[in-house]
Each structure stands twice: as C-alpha cells, then as structure tokens.
C-alpha cells in the first residue's frame, strides 16, 4: 500500500469536487489504499459532527471502524479521504485487524484501468434528510443515505 | 473542506486522538 501511494493522485472528479485516480492499472482483489485519520470515540465524533455541520464542512470524512470508534479524516489523514461514493463501485472498503489495530482498507473488487476514478460504496445509514448521489451509474440509488 | 485545507495534517498511520479536558465544553 505504501509503495502504491505514489501511483494514486487526487484531481477534479466528474462525480463530485475532488476524486482519487489510479495512475496505473490495478488488478481485482488488490489493496489500493488504507483510509487513515484520527481514531476518536463515538461521543467525540457526535460532537465534531455538530461542529463540522455548523462550519459547513459536512461529516463525510467520518468512517465508523467499530461500535465505539470512528476514523475522522477531516483535518488529518491521507489521500483516501478523496475517494468518492459510487452505487456501482470499482472498490470496496473492509475493516481488518493488524496486530490488534483495526484498519480500514480499500481494495479493488474489479480491475481498475489507468486514469479511472477509484470509488467505493459509502454504505451510509438511511437518514431523513437525503444527500443526492452524483455517481451517474446506471444502477444509481439516487441518494448516499 | 477543500483539498488544500491550510491546516490539514497528512498522516501515514491512524493516530489515536488525545481528548482535551474541555473537549465537550461550549466555547463562548
């Protein structure tokens, strides 16, 4: 993953704002990148979500890792924070445990061509106020949540 | 939060956040 980092690049995305792109082909099943950020507990995440909403940042850089812990990549993290959601993604997110440390890894579930945008399904919980989905996939569900 | 946020910290590993004593206090 570390070596692959330089073969990914963030740039303007057709889906939304910024996206992460492959600079070389990636085989199905290969790990692409780890989603890195600050490990915070639920209560702190709830508190930050309110602060981010107020300051217009939104809360889409918070990634749940288990019942009580969340990875927050809003103000500290790596390129993985730029990966956009897609309803028909070319990657999946998975939580693995390495030496008792839980990690979020994004891996390709189908071959990714050079220059293709990396995407995964955010699997946001269903909520009242909807976030429209811009992925443009034929099987698009219309909303992120 | 833009890609070029001024105070964004790039990390190579997850970091455990050290909560502050006044983490949840309402700041005037």
């Amino acid at each position, binding site marked *: 993953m570390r070596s692959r980092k330089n073969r990914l690049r963030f740039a303007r995305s057709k889906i939304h704002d910024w996206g992460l792109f492959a600079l070389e082909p990636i085989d199905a099943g290969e790990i692409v990148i780890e989603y890195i950020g600050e490990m915070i*507990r*639920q*209560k*702190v995440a709830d508190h930050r979500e309110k602060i981010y909403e107020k300051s217009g940042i939104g809360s889409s850089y918070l990634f749940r890792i288990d019942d009580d812990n969340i990875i927050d990549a809003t103000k500290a993290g790596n390129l993985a924070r730029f990966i956009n959601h897609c309803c028909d993604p070319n990657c999946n997110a998975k939580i693995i445990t390495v030496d008792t440390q839980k990690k979020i890894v994004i891996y390709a579930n189908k071959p990714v061509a050079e220059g293709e945008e990396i995407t995964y399904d955010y699997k946001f919980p269903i909520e009242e106020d909807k976030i429209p989905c811009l992925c443009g996939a034929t099987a698009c569900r219309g909303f992120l949540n | 939060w833009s890609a070029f946020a001024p105070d964004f910290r790039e990390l190579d590993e997850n970091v*455990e956040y*050290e*909560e502050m*004593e006044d*983490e*949840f*206090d*309402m700041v*005037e």
Partner: protein
Amino acid sequence: PVTLSFEVTHTAPQMKLSPDGLTIFTEKGYRMSKATHGVYEGCWYYEVKFHSNEKGHARVGWSQISGDLQAPCGCDVFSYSFRDSPGTLFHQSAHVKGNDAFSAGYIDMLDAIEDGDVLGIMINLPPPT
C-alpha cells in the same frame, strides 16, 4: 450503603470502579459514574476525596438518571458539576458564572483543591408539588 453503581446503565463500562464501589478512575476522555441510589426530595450530601497524585481532572456533581454516561457530569441538560481545577461550574457544557450560578461563591475555593482535600457536595430538593 450508597456507593457508585456497578450497573452499566449507571456507570460507563470503560470506567474502573474499586470493589467497594467508592473509588473511580477512567482515562482517554471524560465519562460518568452515578450512585446506586437516586433521590427526589430532601437534603442530601456526599463527600469526594481527591487524590491529585493522578494526572488528570475530575468533575463531580449531581445528575438525573438520563445524564449521558459517555460525557462529563455537567455536559448535558440533566447534570450539574464542579471541575477541580480551574474551578468552574458546568451545566449543559457551559461555564455557569455569577450569582445565578447553582453554587455562587464556590469557585474561588475550587481553585485551591489539593491532594487529600475533601469536597462536600450537597443538594436540597424541596418536597415535589
């Protein structure tokens, strides 16, 4: 006897409570432990002895049963607390100041909390109408 409660509905599971239920410790962020008994009328009083040899802080006070266990006492609308240092009164996460505070005239004493000090906490609940 009234002690701190071992029930996870009254003490955050991450907190370490001594076998006699009288000494409590937690780390990496505030959480709350409530007593085994609740009161709704009359004048009640308890004492807290500080061991400030531990690095860290404490907020002690009163909470209704719905106070959030994953946050400090005084964080939400259900609880009221004093912080050891700097001495501050809290309710709904806000610093409560001035004479309308629920314990006016207390703050200066709080700044002086030292190892071994005993803090007395009293509440006076008039008969419910």
